[in-house]
Protein backbone atom coordinates (compact mmCIF):
# COMPACT_ATOMS: atom_id res chain seq x y z
CA UNK A 1 0.00 0.00 0.00
CA UNK A 2 1.27 3.41 -0.81
CA UNK A 3 0.79 6.36 1.45
CA UNK A 4 -2.38 7.67 -0.16
CA UNK A 5 -4.10 4.30 0.06
CA UNK A 6 -3.12 3.99 3.69
CA UNK A 7 -4.68 7.36 4.46
CA UNK A 8 -7.91 6.38 2.70
CA UNK A 9 -7.99 3.05 4.47
CA UNK A 10 -7.35 4.54 7.89
CA UNK A 11 -9.86 7.34 7.51
CA UNK A 12 -12.65 5.05 6.29
CA UNK A 13 -11.91 2.67 9.16
CA UNK A 14 -12.09 5.59 11.56
CA UNK A 15 -15.39 6.73 10.04
CA UNK A 16 -16.94 3.27 10.42
CA UNK A 17 -15.84 3.02 14.05
CA UNK A 18 -17.13 6.52 14.76
CA UNK A 19 -20.52 5.78 13.17
CA UNK A 20 -20.81 2.48 15.04
CA UNK A 21 -20.01 4.25 18.31
CA UNK A 22 -22.58 6.96 17.67
CA UNK A 23 -25.14 4.33 16.75
CA UNK A 24 -24.40 2.31 19.85
CA UNK A 25 -24.49 5.42 22.01
CA UNK A 26 -27.82 6.74 20.82
CA UNK A 27 -29.76 3.79 19.48
CA UNK A 28 -28.79 0.67 21.39
CA UNK A 29 -31.51 -1.00 23.41
CA UNK A 30 -31.92 0.18 27.00
CA UNK A 31 -30.58 -2.06 29.70
CA UNK A 32 -32.22 -3.07 32.94
CA UNK A 33 -34.07 -0.45 34.91
CA UNK A 34 -32.37 0.69 38.14
CA UNK A 35 -33.41 -1.00 41.37
CA UNK A 36 -35.88 0.73 43.68
CA UNK A 37 -33.09 1.67 46.04
CA UNK A 38 -31.09 3.20 43.19
CA UNK A 39 -34.13 5.14 41.98
CA UNK A 40 -34.71 6.56 45.45
CA UNK A 41 -31.11 7.58 46.04
CA UNK A 42 -30.78 9.10 42.55
CA UNK A 43 -33.87 11.22 43.08
CA UNK A 44 -32.98 12.34 46.59
CA UNK A 45 -29.46 13.22 45.45
CA UNK A 46 -30.80 15.42 42.65
CA UNK A 47 -33.66 16.96 44.57
CA UNK A 48 -33.29 16.60 48.33
CA UNK A 49 -36.62 18.24 48.95
CA UNK A 50 -38.38 15.31 47.30
CA UNK A 51 -37.64 12.98 50.26
CA UNK A 52 -38.67 9.95 48.27
CA UNK A 53 -39.15 6.99 50.58
CA UNK A 54 -41.04 4.38 48.62
CA UNK A 55 -41.33 3.45 44.95
CA UNK A 56 -44.89 2.44 44.16
CA UNK A 57 -44.40 1.02 40.70
CA UNK A 58 -42.48 1.26 37.43
CA UNK A 59 -44.75 1.79 34.45
CA UNK A 60 -43.20 1.72 30.99
CA UNK A 61 -44.57 3.89 28.19
CA UNK A 62 -42.18 2.26 25.73
CA UNK A 63 -38.76 0.72 26.08
CA UNK A 64 -37.03 4.01 26.81
CA UNK A 65 -39.57 5.95 28.89
CA UNK A 66 -40.92 5.02 32.30
CA UNK A 67 -43.25 6.60 34.80
CA UNK A 68 -42.34 5.97 38.44
CA UNK A 69 -44.91 7.02 41.04
CA UNK A 70 -43.53 7.34 44.56
CA UNK A 71 -44.36 8.15 48.15
CA UNK A 72 -42.40 10.62 50.30
CA UNK A 73 -41.31 10.69 53.94
CA UNK A 74 -44.08 13.15 54.66
CA UNK A 75 -46.67 10.88 53.14
CA UNK A 76 -47.13 12.84 49.92
CA UNK A 77 -47.53 11.15 46.54
CA UNK A 78 -45.35 12.23 43.65
CA UNK A 79 -44.36 11.49 40.08
CA UNK A 80 -41.05 10.94 38.40
CA UNK A 81 -40.33 10.62 34.71
CA UNK A 82 -37.44 8.43 33.56
CA UNK A 83 -35.80 8.41 30.16
CA UNK A 84 -33.12 6.17 28.66
CA UNK A 85 -30.69 8.87 27.58
CA UNK A 86 -26.98 8.74 26.76
CA UNK A 87 -26.75 5.07 27.77
CA UNK A 88 -28.25 5.72 31.19
CA UNK A 89 -31.65 5.73 32.82
CA UNK A 90 -32.04 9.34 33.91
CA UNK A 91 -34.82 11.18 35.61
CA UNK A 92 -36.22 14.06 33.57
CA UNK A 93 -38.53 15.58 36.13
CA UNK A 94 -39.52 14.95 39.74
CA UNK A 95 -42.89 16.24 40.89
CA UNK A 96 -43.84 16.40 44.55
CA UNK A 97 -47.51 15.85 43.73
CA UNK A 98 -49.28 13.40 41.51
CA UNK A 99 -51.96 15.26 39.57
CA UNK A 100 -52.43 13.94 36.02
CA UNK A 101 -49.88 15.07 33.46
CA UNK A 102 -49.88 14.55 29.73
CA UNK A 103 -46.52 13.18 28.61
CA UNK A 104 -45.44 13.26 24.96
CA UNK A 105 -42.27 11.13 24.99
CA UNK A 106 -41.36 11.77 21.36
CA UNK A 107 -42.14 15.23 20.08
CA UNK A 108 -41.93 14.01 16.51
CA UNK A 109 -44.92 11.80 17.23
CA UNK A 110 -47.21 14.40 18.71
CA UNK A 111 -50.20 12.11 18.97
CA UNK A 112 -48.43 9.38 20.92
CA UNK A 113 -49.29 10.77 24.32
CA UNK A 114 -49.72 9.29 27.75
CA UNK A 115 -51.68 10.40 30.76
CA UNK A 116 -49.94 9.57 34.03
CA UNK A 117 -51.16 10.14 37.59
CA UNK A 118 -50.51 9.32 41.21
CA UNK A 119 -53.44 10.56 43.25
CA UNK A 120 -53.10 10.99 47.01
CA UNK A 121 -55.44 8.37 48.59
CA UNK A 122 -56.50 10.95 51.18
CA UNK A 123 -58.17 12.87 48.38
CA UNK A 124 -60.66 10.01 48.12
CA UNK A 125 -60.84 10.02 44.37
CA UNK A 126 -62.63 6.95 43.10
CA UNK A 127 -62.72 7.58 39.40
CA UNK A 128 -61.52 10.07 36.85
CA UNK A 129 -63.08 11.21 33.62
CA UNK A 130 -60.49 12.39 31.14
CA UNK A 131 -61.64 14.68 28.37
CA UNK A 132 -60.36 15.81 25.01
CA UNK A 133 -61.95 19.19 24.43
CA UNK A 134 -61.87 21.74 21.68
CA UNK A 135 -64.08 24.76 22.01
CA UNK A 136 -66.66 25.61 19.39
CA UNK A 137 -65.70 28.70 17.47
CA UNK A 138 -66.33 30.66 14.30
CA UNK A 139 -64.62 33.33 12.26
CA UNK A 140 -65.68 35.45 9.33
CA UNK A 141 -63.06 37.43 7.47
CA UNK A 142 -63.57 38.98 4.04
CA UNK A 143 -66.77 37.01 3.78
CA UNK A 144 -64.99 33.69 4.23
CA UNK A 145 -66.52 31.59 6.95
CA UNK A 146 -64.80 29.12 9.24
CA UNK A 147 -66.69 27.02 11.73
CA UNK A 148 -64.89 24.94 14.34
CA UNK A 149 -67.15 22.29 15.81
CA UNK A 150 -67.03 21.49 19.50
CA UNK A 151 -65.08 18.39 20.32
CA UNK A 152 -65.70 16.65 23.62
CA UNK A 153 -64.53 13.09 24.00
CA UNK A 154 -64.49 11.22 27.28
CA UNK A 155 -62.52 8.35 28.73
CA UNK A 156 -63.36 7.10 32.22
CA UNK A 157 -60.81 5.50 34.54
CA UNK A 158 -61.71 3.74 37.80
CA UNK A 159 -58.95 3.87 40.37
CA UNK A 160 -59.87 0.81 42.50
CA UNK A 161 -56.92 -0.20 44.69
CA UNK A 162 -54.37 1.58 42.55
CA UNK A 163 -54.24 5.33 42.80
CA UNK A 164 -51.60 5.64 40.14
CA UNK A 165 -51.50 4.65 36.51
CA UNK A 166 -50.65 5.41 32.92
CA UNK A 167 -52.99 5.56 29.98
CA UNK A 168 -52.10 5.98 26.36
CA UNK A 169 -54.70 8.34 24.97
CA UNK A 170 -57.50 6.50 23.14
CA UNK A 171 -57.27 5.78 19.42
CA UNK A 172 -60.15 8.04 18.49
CA UNK A 173 -58.46 10.94 20.24
CA UNK A 174 -55.24 10.16 18.39
CA UNK A 175 -57.05 10.29 15.06
CA UNK A 176 -58.55 13.67 15.75
CA UNK A 177 -55.32 15.10 17.15
CA UNK A 178 -53.28 13.74 14.26
CA UNK A 179 -55.43 15.26 11.56
CA UNK A 180 -55.69 18.64 13.24
CA UNK A 181 -51.95 18.62 13.88
CA UNK A 182 -51.18 18.08 10.19
CA UNK A 183 -53.62 20.76 9.09
CA UNK A 184 -52.15 23.18 11.61
CA UNK A 185 -48.60 22.35 10.62
CA UNK A 186 -49.18 22.98 6.93
CA UNK A 187 -51.08 26.15 7.71
CA UNK A 188 -48.02 27.37 9.58
CA UNK A 189 -45.69 26.50 6.73
CA UNK A 190 -47.69 28.55 4.25
CA UNK A 191 -48.35 31.48 6.53
CA UNK A 192 -46.45 34.72 6.46
CA UNK A 193 -45.28 34.17 10.02
CA UNK A 194 -43.71 30.96 8.80
CA UNK A 195 -41.67 29.96 11.79
CA UNK A 196 -44.30 30.38 14.41
CA UNK A 197 -46.07 27.08 14.96
CA UNK A 198 -49.48 27.61 16.44
CA UNK A 199 -50.36 24.73 18.67
CA UNK A 200 -53.68 23.14 17.86
CA UNK A 201 -56.22 24.58 20.25
CA UNK A 202 -57.60 21.45 21.83
CA UNK A 203 -56.70 20.45 25.36
CA UNK A 204 -56.94 17.47 27.63
CA UNK A 205 -58.67 17.83 30.97
CA UNK A 206 -59.75 15.75 33.92
CA UNK A 207 -62.62 15.57 36.33
CA UNK A 208 -62.16 13.51 39.52
CA UNK A 209 -65.11 11.93 41.35
CA UNK A 210 -65.51 10.50 44.82
CA UNK A 211 -67.17 7.22 45.83
CA UNK A 212 -70.64 8.69 45.39
CA UNK A 213 -69.95 10.01 41.95
CA UNK A 214 -69.76 13.59 43.23
CA UNK A 215 -66.97 15.97 42.25
CA UNK A 216 -63.85 15.37 44.32
CA UNK A 217 -61.40 18.09 45.22
CA UNK A 218 -57.97 16.47 45.20
CA UNK A 219 -56.06 19.07 47.19
CA UNK A 220 -53.29 16.67 48.15
CA UNK A 221 -52.57 15.85 44.53
CA UNK A 222 -52.13 19.31 43.13
CA UNK A 223 -49.76 21.09 45.52
CA UNK A 224 -46.12 20.22 45.39
CA UNK A 225 -42.73 21.37 44.24
CA UNK A 226 -40.95 20.00 41.26
CA UNK A 227 -37.47 19.64 39.89
CA UNK A 228 -36.58 19.61 36.21
CA UNK A 229 -33.41 17.79 35.25
CA UNK A 230 -33.84 17.92 31.48
CA UNK A 231 -36.62 18.70 29.05
CA UNK A 232 -39.44 16.39 28.10
CA UNK A 233 -42.76 17.51 26.69
CA UNK A 234 -45.27 17.64 29.54
CA UNK A 235 -48.64 19.32 29.33
CA UNK A 236 -50.77 20.44 32.18
CA UNK A 237 -54.06 18.55 32.43
CA UNK A 238 -56.69 21.09 33.35
CA UNK A 239 -59.62 20.68 35.64
CA UNK A 240 -62.85 20.52 33.68
CA UNK A 241 -65.82 22.20 35.32
CA UNK A 242 -69.25 20.80 34.92
CA UNK A 243 -70.46 23.97 33.24
CA UNK A 244 -67.83 23.57 30.51
CA UNK A 245 -69.34 20.27 29.46
CA UNK A 246 -72.08 19.88 26.92
Amino acid sequence: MNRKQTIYFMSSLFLIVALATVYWFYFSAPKAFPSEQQLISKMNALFAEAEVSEILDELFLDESHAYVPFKTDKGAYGSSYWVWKNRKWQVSTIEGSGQPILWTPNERKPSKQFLVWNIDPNDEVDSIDFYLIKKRNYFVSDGIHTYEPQVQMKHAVILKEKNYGILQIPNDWVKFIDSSYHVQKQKTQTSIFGDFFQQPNHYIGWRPYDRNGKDAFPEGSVNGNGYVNFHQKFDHVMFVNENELE
Partner: protein
Amino acid sequence: MTFSHINIPILILSVLAWITMGVLFFQIYKRQIEKPKVWKAILVVIIGIFSFSINWPMLNQVIKIPILPLGVWLLYFIYRKSVDKWLVYRKYAWLGFFSGYLFLATSLLSLPVNHLFYPKDQLETYLANMENAHMIILHPSGVESSLNKEKLEQSIGQMEPSTIYSDEWYSETYMDPDEKNKSERFPYQLVGVNPKIGSGMVSTVYVERDGKGLLISTPNGQQYFRSKMPFLEGLKEEKRDE
Protein backbone atom coordinates in the same frame (compact mmCIF):
# COMPACT_ATOMS: atom_id res chain seq x y z
CA MET B 1 -43.58 14.57 7.14
CA THR B 2 -44.47 11.44 5.25
CA PHE B 3 -44.52 11.00 1.52
CA SER B 4 -48.31 11.25 1.33
CA HIS B 5 -48.11 14.90 2.36
CA ILE B 6 -46.03 15.87 -0.65
CA ASN B 7 -47.69 17.86 -3.37
CA ILE B 8 -46.53 16.31 -6.65
CA PRO B 9 -47.04 19.39 -8.92
CA ILE B 10 -44.90 21.51 -6.62
CA LEU B 11 -42.30 18.75 -6.45
CA ILE B 12 -42.12 18.42 -10.25
CA LEU B 13 -41.98 22.18 -10.78
CA SER B 14 -39.20 22.48 -8.21
CA VAL B 15 -37.21 19.74 -9.92
CA LEU B 16 -37.70 21.57 -13.22
CA ALA B 17 -36.45 24.78 -11.61
CA TRP B 18 -33.32 23.01 -10.38
CA ILE B 19 -32.72 21.49 -13.81
CA THR B 20 -33.04 24.96 -15.36
CA MET B 21 -30.45 26.19 -12.88
CA GLY B 22 -28.11 23.39 -13.88
CA VAL B 23 -28.54 24.12 -17.58
CA LEU B 24 -27.90 27.83 -17.09
CA PHE B 25 -24.85 27.06 -14.98
CA PHE B 26 -23.49 24.81 -17.71
CA GLN B 27 -24.19 27.42 -20.40
CA ILE B 28 -22.27 30.06 -18.51
CA TYR B 29 -19.40 27.67 -17.92
CA LYS B 30 -19.24 26.54 -21.54
CA ARG B 31 -18.98 30.05 -22.91
CA GLN B 32 -16.23 31.19 -20.60
CA ILE B 33 -12.73 31.28 -21.95
CA GLU B 34 -11.18 31.55 -18.53
CA LYS B 35 -12.81 28.71 -16.57
CA PRO B 36 -13.47 28.99 -12.85
CA LYS B 37 -13.12 26.12 -10.38
CA VAL B 38 -16.45 24.28 -10.52
CA TRP B 39 -16.87 23.84 -6.76
CA LYS B 40 -16.12 27.53 -6.24
CA ALA B 41 -18.63 28.50 -8.90
CA ILE B 42 -21.28 26.35 -7.18
CA LEU B 43 -20.46 27.99 -3.85
CA VAL B 44 -20.80 31.42 -5.47
CA VAL B 45 -24.25 30.46 -6.82
CA ILE B 46 -25.33 29.37 -3.35
CA ILE B 47 -24.09 32.60 -1.76
CA GLY B 48 -25.78 34.52 -4.58
CA ILE B 49 -29.17 33.05 -3.58
CA PHE B 50 -28.99 34.98 -0.33
CA SER B 51 -31.20 38.04 -0.72
CA PHE B 52 -33.50 40.41 1.02
CA SER B 53 -36.98 39.50 -0.13
CA ILE B 54 -40.58 40.44 0.46
CA ASN B 55 -43.02 37.79 1.58
CA TRP B 56 -46.28 38.38 -0.17
CA PRO B 57 -49.32 36.39 0.97
CA MET B 58 -51.31 35.43 -2.09
CA LEU B 59 -54.16 32.95 -2.29
CA ASN B 60 -53.17 31.08 0.84
CA GLN B 61 -49.58 30.86 -0.20
CA VAL B 62 -46.62 33.01 0.62
CA ILE B 63 -44.87 34.33 -2.46
CA LYS B 64 -41.24 35.31 -1.91
CA ILE B 65 -40.09 38.19 -4.06
CA PRO B 66 -36.31 38.82 -4.00
CA ILE B 67 -35.49 42.53 -3.88
CA LEU B 68 -31.93 43.19 -2.75
CA PRO B 69 -29.12 40.90 -3.97
CA LEU B 70 -27.29 40.71 -0.62
CA GLY B 71 -25.28 37.64 -1.63
CA VAL B 72 -24.07 39.29 -4.82
CA TRP B 73 -23.00 42.37 -2.86
CA LEU B 74 -21.14 40.23 -0.37
CA LEU B 75 -19.28 38.44 -3.18
CA TYR B 76 -18.51 41.75 -4.85
CA PHE B 77 -17.03 42.91 -1.57
CA ILE B 78 -14.93 39.73 -1.25
CA TYR B 79 -13.60 40.02 -4.81
CA ARG B 80 -13.19 43.81 -4.75
CA LYS B 81 -9.40 43.59 -4.97
CA SER B 82 -9.20 41.00 -7.74
CA VAL B 83 -11.26 42.36 -10.58
CA ASP B 84 -10.35 39.66 -13.10
CA LYS B 85 -11.56 36.93 -10.74
CA TRP B 86 -14.78 38.82 -10.12
CA LEU B 87 -15.35 38.90 -13.87
CA VAL B 88 -15.10 35.10 -13.90
CA TYR B 89 -17.50 34.54 -10.99
CA ARG B 90 -19.90 37.45 -11.40
CA LYS B 91 -22.34 35.62 -13.63
CA TYR B 92 -22.64 32.76 -11.14
CA ALA B 93 -23.46 35.17 -8.35
CA TRP B 94 -26.25 36.71 -10.41
CA LEU B 95 -27.45 33.23 -11.36
CA GLY B 96 -27.92 32.59 -7.63
CA PHE B 97 -29.95 35.76 -7.24
CA PHE B 98 -31.95 34.98 -10.37
CA SER B 99 -32.88 31.58 -8.96
CA GLY B 100 -35.11 33.42 -6.48
CA TYR B 101 -37.28 34.49 -9.41
CA LEU B 102 -37.19 31.00 -10.85
CA PHE B 103 -38.66 29.65 -7.62
CA LEU B 104 -41.11 32.54 -7.54
CA ALA B 105 -42.30 31.40 -10.97
CA THR B 106 -42.54 27.86 -9.60
CA SER B 107 -44.91 28.92 -6.83
CA LEU B 108 -46.98 31.06 -9.18
CA LEU B 109 -47.26 28.23 -11.70
CA SER B 110 -48.16 25.66 -9.06
CA LEU B 111 -51.38 27.54 -8.26
CA PRO B 112 -53.19 26.98 -11.59
CA VAL B 113 -51.71 23.50 -11.94
CA ASN B 114 -53.02 22.51 -8.52
CA HIS B 115 -56.33 24.10 -9.31
CA LEU B 116 -56.54 22.00 -12.45
CA PHE B 117 -55.67 18.66 -10.86
CA TYR B 118 -57.03 19.21 -7.38
CA PRO B 119 -59.97 21.60 -7.50
CA LYS B 120 -60.89 22.82 -4.06
CA ASP B 121 -64.61 22.61 -4.66
CA GLN B 122 -64.58 18.94 -5.56
CA LEU B 123 -64.97 16.33 -2.91
CA GLU B 124 -62.73 13.82 -4.72
CA THR B 125 -59.75 16.03 -3.93
CA TYR B 126 -60.21 15.23 -0.25
CA LEU B 127 -61.86 11.81 -0.36
CA ALA B 128 -60.31 9.78 -3.13
CA ASN B 129 -59.80 6.48 -1.35
CA MET B 130 -62.24 5.28 1.27
CA GLU B 131 -61.22 1.67 1.73
CA ASN B 132 -60.42 2.18 5.40
CA ALA B 133 -62.97 4.88 6.07
CA HIS B 134 -64.84 4.87 9.33
CA MET B 135 -66.43 7.29 11.72
CA ILE B 136 -65.56 8.45 15.17
CA ILE B 137 -67.83 10.34 17.53
CA LEU B 138 -66.38 13.67 18.54
CA HIS B 139 -69.19 15.00 20.67
CA PRO B 140 -71.70 13.47 23.13
CA SER B 141 -74.62 14.59 20.95
CA GLY B 142 -73.42 12.14 18.30
CA VAL B 143 -75.08 8.72 18.36
CA GLU B 144 -73.57 5.33 17.61
CA SER B 145 -74.25 5.21 13.91
CA SER B 146 -72.46 3.47 11.15
CA LEU B 147 -71.06 4.77 7.94
CA ASN B 148 -72.59 3.41 4.77
CA LYS B 149 -69.51 3.49 2.59
CA GLU B 150 -71.38 2.54 -0.56
CA LYS B 151 -73.82 5.39 -0.16
CA LEU B 152 -71.03 7.81 0.59
CA GLU B 153 -69.06 6.67 -2.45
CA GLN B 154 -72.15 7.03 -4.60
CA SER B 155 -72.91 10.50 -3.33
CA ILE B 156 -69.38 11.84 -3.59
CA GLY B 157 -69.74 12.86 -7.23
CA GLN B 158 -73.13 14.41 -6.54
CA MET B 159 -72.40 16.31 -3.39
CA GLU B 160 -72.49 20.03 -3.91
CA PRO B 161 -70.35 22.75 -2.41
CA SER B 162 -72.54 24.73 -0.05
CA THR B 163 -72.36 27.87 2.00
CA ILE B 164 -70.91 27.81 5.50
CA TYR B 165 -73.09 29.79 7.90
CA SER B 166 -70.55 29.75 10.69
CA ASP B 167 -72.16 32.43 12.85
CA GLU B 168 -75.63 30.90 12.60
CA TRP B 169 -74.37 27.41 13.36
CA TYR B 170 -72.49 28.74 16.31
CA SER B 171 -75.40 30.63 17.81
CA GLU B 172 -78.08 28.04 17.14
CA THR B 173 -76.26 25.71 19.53
CA TYR B 174 -76.72 28.18 22.34
CA MET B 175 -80.40 28.74 21.62
CA ASP B 176 -81.02 25.20 22.73
CA PRO B 177 -82.88 25.47 26.04
CA ASP B 178 -81.26 22.24 27.20
CA GLU B 179 -78.15 23.83 28.72
CA LYS B 180 -76.40 20.61 29.63
CA ASN B 181 -77.07 18.58 26.54
CA LYS B 182 -76.11 20.86 23.73
CA SER B 183 -76.20 19.53 20.22
CA GLU B 184 -73.22 19.93 17.98
CA ARG B 185 -73.97 20.35 14.30
CA PHE B 186 -70.91 18.28 13.34
CA PRO B 187 -70.49 15.61 16.02
CA TYR B 188 -68.54 13.07 13.93
CA GLN B 189 -65.26 12.80 12.11
CA LEU B 190 -64.64 10.71 9.03
CA VAL B 191 -61.21 9.09 9.38
CA GLY B 192 -59.08 6.68 7.37
CA VAL B 193 -59.72 8.49 4.10
CA ASN B 194 -57.01 9.38 1.63
CA PRO B 195 -56.92 12.49 -0.55
CA LYS B 196 -56.36 12.40 -4.29
CA ILE B 197 -52.94 10.95 -5.06
CA GLY B 198 -50.21 13.54 -5.27
CA SER B 199 -52.26 16.37 -3.83
CA GLY B 200 -50.47 16.30 -0.50
CA MET B 201 -53.79 17.43 0.95
CA VAL B 202 -54.26 17.13 4.68
CA SER B 203 -57.67 17.72 6.22
CA THR B 204 -60.04 17.09 9.08
CA VAL B 205 -63.40 15.86 7.78
CA TYR B 206 -66.36 16.63 10.04
CA VAL B 207 -69.68 14.90 9.43
CA GLU B 208 -72.98 16.65 9.99
CA ARG B 209 -75.46 15.16 12.44
CA ASP B 210 -78.11 14.53 9.77
CA GLY B 211 -75.59 12.36 7.93
CA LYS B 212 -75.78 14.47 4.78
CA GLY B 213 -73.06 17.05 5.13
CA LEU B 214 -69.29 17.14 5.24
CA LEU B 215 -67.29 20.07 6.58
CA ILE B 216 -63.65 19.81 5.54
CA SER B 217 -60.98 21.79 7.34
CA THR B 218 -57.80 22.24 5.33
CA PRO B 219 -54.73 24.43 5.83
CA ASN B 220 -56.31 26.81 3.29
CA GLY B 221 -59.71 27.17 4.89
CA GLN B 222 -62.87 25.13 4.89
CA GLN B 223 -65.13 23.52 2.31
CA TYR B 224 -68.66 22.36 2.95
CA PHE B 225 -70.50 19.75 0.89
CA ARG B 226 -74.12 18.60 1.06
CA SER B 227 -75.64 15.38 -0.19
CA LYS B 228 -79.28 14.66 -1.00
CA MET B 229 -79.30 11.30 0.73
CA PRO B 230 -77.76 10.44 4.07
CA PHE B 231 -74.70 8.19 4.21
CA LEU B 232 -74.99 7.37 7.91
CA GLU B 233 -77.17 4.64 9.30
CA GLY B 234 -78.84 4.34 12.67
CA LEU B 235 -79.50 8.03 13.12
CA LYS B 236 -83.22 7.65 13.78
CA GLU B 237 -83.02 7.46 17.53
CA GLU B 238 -82.04 11.03 18.23
CA LYS B 239 -81.41 10.23 21.85
CA ARG B 240 -78.60 10.95 24.21
CA ASP B 241 -76.72 8.25 26.05
CA GLU B 242 -75.92 10.27 29.10
